[in-house]
């Protein structure tokens, strides 16, 4: 068996998710290659080559792959897929955007959000917002899989895989990049943070989200939000945790002013320890919280910050 992992990039650099996808690939077993595609991605390729357990890194560095638009990326994967039994990517917005195109063009199904590997053809994946876990077996010749990174550890980076250029260049006349507004933050990335503190509608407005900053600084935490907080415009979309936002599983998750709708729980209920701060002692979030504190967040947050 041979597995191709599509590397995740964040502003041209290798994203942390890829090291988790390699662990999923190791669970399947076989030679593992990584594809780094984009424009000006040599640094990302070097970082990928250091990941443990990687056979070789294939680099498609060309303007047509800039921003990893779905159309050229799909075509590139189709051109490379014949060498492989499995193609994996993280279930990031890039993986979700690109991999189904490969699957369709190869006339195979895709398995989304895989969080466990039973064997080379049998996998676990969440359905119904994670309220059920399906075991599925694929008899397709090529397995196309997006990986839920919280389901797998990450490999280290003491490796030295060979790097090889891919000279496949495809044409793209259908889509073009216009602009991008990326959130700038010095905090850890939501998906990989050890501690996450999230605010919900109870925060009242965007200004009040600053109450979470001091605590996040002290705990080295990433800041997340519920859909209601994002919809209300308190904070940007990339902070949404849940069924349709980011899936997180930190050591500590602190939910502040969040009621605990199933769609929110879907994104955080695999956290090791959950703390809920809510003024409604019947809020459903308390049913999953290890430690619940009933009270007004506007009093609790400043006290918590000062005492940490």
């Amino acid at each position, binding site marked *: 068996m041979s597995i191709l992992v599509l590397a995740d990039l964040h502003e041209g650099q290798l994203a942390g998710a890829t090291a988790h996808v390699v662990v999923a690939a190791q669970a399947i077993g076989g030679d593992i290659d990584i594809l780094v595609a984009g424009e000006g991605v040599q640094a990302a390729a070097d970082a990928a080559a250091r990941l443990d357990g990687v056979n070789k890194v294939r680099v498609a560095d060309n303007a047509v792959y800039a921003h990893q638009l779905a159309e050229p990326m799909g075509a590139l994967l189709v051109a490379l897929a014949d060498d492989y039994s499995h193609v994996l990517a993280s279930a*990031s*917005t890039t993986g979700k955007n690109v991999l189904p195109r490969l699957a369709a063009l190869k006339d195979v199904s895709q398995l*989304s959000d895989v969080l466990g590997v039973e064997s080379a053809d049998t996998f676990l994946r969440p*359905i119904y917002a994670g309220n059920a876990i399906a075991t599925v*077996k*694929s*008899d397709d010749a090529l397995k196309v899989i997006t990986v839920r990174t919280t389901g797998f550890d990450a490999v280290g980076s003491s490796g030295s895989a060979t790097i090889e250029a891919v000279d496949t260049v495809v044409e793209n006349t259908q889509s073009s990049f216009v602009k991008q507004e990326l959130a700038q933050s010095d905090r850890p990335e939501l998906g990989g943070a050890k501690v996450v503190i999230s605010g919900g509608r109870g925060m009242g407005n965007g200004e009040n989200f600053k109450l979470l900053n001091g605590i996040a600084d002290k705990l080295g935490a990433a800041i997340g939000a519920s859909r209601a907080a994002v919809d209300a415009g308190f904070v940007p979309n990339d902070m949404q945790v849940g069924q349709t936002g980011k899936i997180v599983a930190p050591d500590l998750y602190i939910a502040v002013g969040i009621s605990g709708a199933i769609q929110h729980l879907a994104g955080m209920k695999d956290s090791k320890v959950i703390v809920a701060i809510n003024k409604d002692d019947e809020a459903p979030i308390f049913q999953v919280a290890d430690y619940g504190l*009933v009270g007004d967040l506007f009093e*609790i947050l400043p006290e*918590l910050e000062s005492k940490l």
Partner: protein
Amino acid sequence: MKILVAVKRVIDYNVKIRVKADHSDVDLTNVKMAMNPFCEIAVEEAVRLKEKGVATEVVAVTVGPKAAQEQLRTALALGADRAIHIETDERAESLAVAKLLAKVVDEEQPGLVILGKQAIDTDNNQTGQMLAALTNLPQGTFASEVAVDGDKVNVTREIDGGLQTVALTLPAIVTTDLRLNEPRYAKLPDIMKAKKKPLDVKTPADYGVEVASKVTLLKVESPAERKGGIKVASVDELIDKLKNEAKVL
């Protein structure tokens, strides 16, 4: 311009699901069903484009059992002009649905196809992308803004790091994210009118598409239940527990 919208009948998003005792699947008997929330957003967007004069006709399509006609009627009540039901009782996976939709695209020649980014039952997030690949059309997934401009459409996408805007040539495939719009509710007179709007019934065989997939569902289980914890009385107690009991501080 004609817009094709795909809709799916799924469990209502408020329902807490149960796994069948024999672990063969999720139990959907007597469960409230509804249009997938992301599909509602897709219908709304299509109808708004028609109201703005960008689109001239909105066609709703679904693949599913007979009962899925309820969701087509909902789409018609929300403003779609006519509907196509591709009837099947088989479990239609994303690839089969995309193949069927590709045939409909071939037949209808829409300028834009709008789908939900994922269905809240299988949570696959695949069909729109697969349809784009099969029809060789560009895609704008996870859209929070759709702006048609002549023979192009600008789609603003919700991506992990923030927002990205891409320009696509038309025809194009768009999948909706939550913040694209807030769907309206169907009014009673519109629900009545919808009953008289045309609804064509077809089968996968009419399109020469095999619905069966090579993926077998072996079993379905409930996830490990989280044990509810305790309530603490104060911030001090919380910090103490996190330090000395949970050992996460």
